[in-house]
């Protein structure tokens, strides 16, 4: 069996895999990732309802389309500033539990 494993090692990838690091990161950041994923779902629902494209959303949020794409995957640790921009651009109420008095 040792010989078979050695033969398999002759076909090992040239670079190391990032899977374990990613998996550990997902486990460590589980809590905010769930928020990020739920927000992405709300955003995608609203975009579909209103027919808004990623490009249009990026223009409204004054950010790049690449950044919008990342947010929609549900993998971004969103700042309050970004959350506020999302609310405004899509007329969503993500932070409604937090009231700000003028």
């Amino acid at each position, binding site marked *: *069996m040792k*010989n*078979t*494993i050695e*033969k*398999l*090692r002759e*076909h*090992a*990838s*040239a670079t*190391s*895999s*990032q*899977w*374990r690091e*990613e*998996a*550990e990161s*997902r*486990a460590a950041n*589980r809590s905010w*990732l*769930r928020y990020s*994923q739920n927000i*992405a*779902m709300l955003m*995608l*629902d609203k975009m579909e309802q209103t027919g808004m494209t990623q490009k249009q959303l990026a223009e409204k949020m004054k950010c790049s389309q690449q950044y919008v*794409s990342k947010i*929609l*995957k*549900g*993998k971004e640790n969103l700042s309050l500033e970004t959350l506020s921009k999302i609310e405004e651009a899509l007329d969503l109420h993500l932070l409604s539990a937090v009231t700000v008095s003028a």
Partner: protein
Amino acid sequence: MTFDEIINGHLWAVRYEGEQDNVLYNLFDHWNDVVWLRSFFKQNKKDVVSYFKIEDINQAIKDTIDDGEHLERLMMDVSLMTNLDTLFRPLDNSRMSESVLSKEKARPHYILRHVSWLRIYAIKLASDVYIITGGAIKLTATMQEREHTRRELVNMEKVRSFLLNERIIDEDGFLDFINEIR
């Protein structure tokens, strides 16, 4: 194709031609990507509704993320002490005898809201030595019914053929294979 050693000599994952990382990386990346999952469940909505009675796509996405988390933890917890023969099961539920480079599957066994639709597929190189070839969100009774699961069968066969062509198999296994095809 090349191979990544996940656990020293024990568990491997295939890195297919043109891919930056192995199948394990790609699977869990997809199973945590809301855009990818939404697109998948829109394409396969009929199956989610008819087999799992789930109408809400966002619920299907959440269930996948939860099950994916559980399955990824199972994979992360694999060590040299883990008996992989208990993690992987024969792909064909009715398989009665061992075959050379057999096709296997792993899935989360706990039931949260419904039986998990996530699968990880592998080739068994030897007792307690497995090579992960891919995985899928399996919504139908058989893999032949849908293109994305059929593709996994093709990939398993490709990896199996590669191993046989390169003679990455122990001598007893090779003799068994010759006898199998005779």
